[in-house]
């Protein structure tokens, strides 16, 4: 069964089509990544899942509830972790969780246990009485995630959960998300960090200009679109242009990797350069384009 199903979802803002006939599935108990550059429509998609944006076309079903009509029932069983921190900063850690225990309708008998559980998940038990504005960035993000888990949701929606955080903090959050998934929670996560998607997601949907341009398990997407190996060629711009031209003539895909050109999907022969395994980033750039919109 699917925890979440989108079919042909379209969302327009005036002349701009932010989400363009998007299909998406989150099978129950899996973690699905929504990968795409800024402006690809990830956040709009996330907002439609909580009925904070209403699609112009298509259908959305979450945990058996049809949106937007039954959105409230769906929301009761979803945990949402927004991209932008919207904690109540003058309240303590515990008070923030208490407010959400009420908003998510946890009855009185279970409220205390739910808050303790969330404090434990966020590893903030000894900070329970600290005001949010006294927490570090990493602690705030952990609290933000724990807040969305206070009612033990069946589906968790994470919108760019680690954006703007130190690598150490990011690792810590990945462990947290991985633990959630291993406990059987379904997860939809939008991100533009490729490594994050590669590590955490069972399947990945790559979005570009509001469309899903590829979908599948990360490893499979890589082999399918970028082959097994890539050769990175370094050199002056003229040489790079030449490598690009000759590789394309030979039917190979290339992409710029900063100071070098990567020739993708090489089997055996290729230009001289450093061989390396292909990765999801290659696929991402191939499919979403090299220019920044």
């Amino acid at each position, binding site marked *: 069964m699917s925890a979440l199903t989108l079919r042909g979802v379209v969302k327009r803002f005036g002349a701009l089509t932010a989400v363009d006939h998007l299909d998406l599935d989150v099978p129950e108990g899996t973690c699905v990544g929504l990968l795409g550059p800024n402006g690809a429509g990830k956040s709009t998609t996330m907002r439609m899942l909580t009925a*904070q944006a*209403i699609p112009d076309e298509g259908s959305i079903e979450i945990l058996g509830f049809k949106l937007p009509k039954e959105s409230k029932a769906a929301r*009761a069983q979803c945990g949402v972790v*927004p991209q932008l921190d919207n904690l109540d900063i003058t*309240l303590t850690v515990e008070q923030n969780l208490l*407010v*959400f225990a009420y908003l*998510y309708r946890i009855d009185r008998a279970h409220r205390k246990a739910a808050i303790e559980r969330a404090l434990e998940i966020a590893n903030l038990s000894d900070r329970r009485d600290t005001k949010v504005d006294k927490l570090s960035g990493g602690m705030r993000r952990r609290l933000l995630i724990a807040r969305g888990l206070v009612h033990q949701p069946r589906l968790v929606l994470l919108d760019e959960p680690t954006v703007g955080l130190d690598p150490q903090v990011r690792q810590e959050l990945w462990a947290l998300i991985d633990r959630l998934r291993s406990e059987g929670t379904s997860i939809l996560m939008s991100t533009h960090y490729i490594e994050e998607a590669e590590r955490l997601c069972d399947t990945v949907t790559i979005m570009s200009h509001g469309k899903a341009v590829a979908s599948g398990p990360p490893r499979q997407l890589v082999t399918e679109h970028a082959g097994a190996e890539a050769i990175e060629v370094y050199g002056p711009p003229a040489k790079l242009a030449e490598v690009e031209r000759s590789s394309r003539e030979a039917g190979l895909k290339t992409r710029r990797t900063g100071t070098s050109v990567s020739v993708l999907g090489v089997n055996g022969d290729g230009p001289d350069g450093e061989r390396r395994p292909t990765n999801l980033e290659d696929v991402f750039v191939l499919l979403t384009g090299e220019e920044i919109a």
Partner: protein
Amino acid sequence: MNQRIGRLERPALMGVLVREIINFSSFWRSSTFSATVEPTVYLLAFGFGFGALVSEVGGFDYIDYIGTGTVATAVLFSSAFPSMFGTFVKYKFQRTYDAILAAPVDTEELVTAEALWIGIRAGTYGCAPMLVAMVFGLDPSWGMLVVPFLGFIAGFGWAGFGMAVAARMNSIDNFSYVISAVLTPLFLVAGTFFPIDGLPDWAQVAAQANPLYHLVELVRHAVFGFEPGADVIHLAFLVAFGLLTWRLAITWMQKRLVD
């Protein structure tokens, strides 16, 4: 409309109220300070300043007159202003409403709970000037017990007004227009500091459309003796004002919060 109101679920309203109550516990001291000190300043300034020139206004001791009149001022200040600024800050800067609407709470419930909370606060703080005036010699009466409820009804209406305004504003600076062009005149031409029957006819007619004027009248009558015929109309006006701004706030906030 009945079906829509049926959608207001108690747990959702509770959730929003609990958030406000817990937040309030962190700043009630400053709110209570300003709610009591402000009317005291008005009473002292106008009571002793003007009171030295006029001892009686509209048949009342001037201190009694403004002591009851400024109840409406206190209600306005503790409802329309926090509602306008608070709403704007909560949806635009703190993004609190995004978090609440991601929970099983709809815009209608969010707006209703916020208005109820502001109404309750306004009803409570609205009593402050009356209590201060009692220190300066206003005689207690049974009718005073109704004043918090009157403050609540008017406060609920102003809360809706504030939210509706905030929902239409794109910048916090724009509130200046509303404050200068709407709230200040309403606040002055409400019979708070001077009776409106001394004003030109057009201003008297305009005052009839001022919710604050109806609140001032109701509060004075509650304290000094009801005038049933007139008071039913005053009360009906406040209730209608509350219903209108409440629905308007829901519609406009919905447009603002849901794409």
